[in-house]
């Protein structure tokens, strides 16, 4: 591995928790020759979850961009990322009024081309457009993962982000949605799996400026071994976004006394007429469920695996590729087969 850049990523929208050193994370990425991608002007300035330093790194190393344009009323169906696993890639989605598009990108252990795979997806969703972005990875233990996302969401448009973070030496991921339009909606689902000494670091931010905007963010994870996870979920209700609602929830299962789990839910409120809620549950698989599963002949390890997968499956099932779903199930089975 060559020289490294240490980037400041996943910043909280406002500095808090100074003593916990969680206002941002330091992410090491390779210092490589820069091949700047040509970014259309309308995509400049879109805020992402991982922040400006990461965006700048990926945009200056990607060389080219994948630009997906859905015309007015057009349904592009499902578009697969054939470049997934590249050291740096930029995907830009411009969804015009009433259009629909689903984009998915999967990095597997064999598809990551080197010691890092970084993806940056930016979305502009015009009025009533529906955009789904799925970033999944089952990278090997030597790969550094960075998955970033940013969207501007217009009137009655909906953007759905799914991030499946299961492998890698470390995985940094984030997302940011600017809900600017009336009744703009953003849903985000993350599942993560930590084992051995994997580091997982997430930051999701929503900025509600439009009236009656809605956000739902849900993260589910399982931590084994010496894995270390930080989850930041921030919702900002900006003055004027009346009758907006936001929900964020995180459920994590801890399987090891040496695994480290930290969660920072943050609600920033500059508007009275809003409803923001967060919830977190941290625990072990409930004993009754384990007993029920074991009473059907499953060993403790099989029951544990089923309980973890049962949390992950509703998200995995949304990946529009049977081969990828199978690969993810096989990966989890391999990593959790502890009997």
């Amino acid at each position, binding site marked *: 591995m060559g020289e490294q850049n240490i980037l400041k990523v996943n910043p909280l929208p406002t500095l808090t928790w100074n003593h916990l050193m969680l206002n941002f994370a330091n992410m090491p990425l390779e210092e490589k020759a820069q091949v700047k991608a040509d970014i259309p002007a309308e995509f400049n300035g879109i805020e992402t979850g991982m922040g400006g330093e990461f965006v700048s790194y990926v945009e200056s190393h990607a060389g080219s961009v994948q630009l997906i344009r859905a015309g007015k009323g057009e349904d592009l169906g499902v578009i697969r990322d054939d470049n997934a696993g590249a050291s740096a890639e930029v995907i830009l989605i411009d969804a015009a009024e009433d259009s629909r598009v689903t984009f998915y990108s999967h990095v597997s252990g064999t598809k990551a081309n080197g010691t890092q795979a970084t993806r940056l997806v930016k979305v502009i969703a015009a009025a009533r457009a529906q955009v789904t972005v799925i970033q999944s990875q089952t990278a090997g233990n030597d790969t550094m993962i960075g998955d970033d996302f940013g969207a501007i969401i217009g009137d009655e448009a909906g953007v759905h982000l799914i991030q499946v973070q299961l492998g890698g030496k470390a995985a940094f991921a984030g997302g940011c949605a600017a809900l600017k339009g009336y009744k703009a909606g953003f849903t985000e689902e993350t599942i993560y799996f930590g084992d051995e000494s994997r580091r997982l670091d997430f930051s999701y931010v929503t900025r509600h400026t439009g009236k009656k905007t809605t956000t739902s963010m849900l993260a589910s994870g399982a931590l084994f071994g010496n894995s270390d996870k930080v989850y930041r979920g921030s919702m900002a209700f900006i003055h004027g976004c009346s009758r907006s609602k936001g929900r964020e929830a995180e459920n994590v299962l801890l399987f090891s006394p040496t695994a480290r789990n930290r969660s920072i839910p943050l609600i920033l409120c500059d508007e009275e007429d809003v409803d923001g809620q967060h919830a977190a549950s941290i625990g072990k698989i409930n*004993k009754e469920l384990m*007993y*029920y599963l*074991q*009473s*059907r002949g499953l060993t403790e390890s*099989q029951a544990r695996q089923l309980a973890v*997968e049962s949390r992950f499956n509703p998200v995995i099932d949304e990946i529009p590729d049977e081969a990828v779903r199978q690969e993810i199930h096989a990966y989890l089975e391999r990593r959790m087969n502890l009997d």
Partner: protein
Amino acid sequence: MSEELLRVENLHADVEEKEILKGINLVVNKGETHVLMGPNGAGKSTLDNCIMGNPEYKVTEGKILFKGEDITKQKADARARKGIFLSFQAPQEVPGVTMEDFLRVCKKNLTGENIRYFAFHKELAATMKALDMDDSYASRYLNVGFSGGEKKKAEIVQMLTLNPAFAMLDETDSGLDVDAVRVVSEGIRRFKTDENSLLIITHNTKILEDLKVDFVHVLYDGKIIRTGGPELVDYINENGFAELIREGE
């Protein structure tokens, strides 16, 4: 001589350090149907759970033998693989795992054989149809959003699919309407052969109408205070437990 399947010897068990079972003796032979009755809190579900191997129930004395092997210290999954099944009074929800996938994994695990997808799907659909259960439930997450009655039927579907040697039904009929009780009863009758055995806990004797019951046990305060034939069910229906409890004391 009948072949012995289950033997419970002088079983004492605690739940949260309170003694619930106070010396249970029970023998179930292959092909037999036993019914366990008794007032609430007598220890009926505790006995089922001790036989299944619920770690929350501590056996403090006595032992449980299955097919001649002492299984008292074995875990629930080991007991299930030997052929013991419990239909739960309150089945757990398993979000994210469809009923069909769950049962296929369990069956493969119990039999050690590869399960052919289409054959299994067809067989499961037929089982569900016989229980008057829409086969769309097979592709739903197990017990999630199922009504109380559907959960109980799903337990019977599991029993019929996994085909255990010894099945315990813990108030499977509670919460079921009259028609559903009949359907579940029919499912139990379909399951029962000379090769397997049943232990049924019930307050509602309707579920027993189509079944050939061999023994009825009355449990009270952690002990079996009376064992009889099917006529004991009629006696309890008419007179309740009070007289039997008085005689037992």
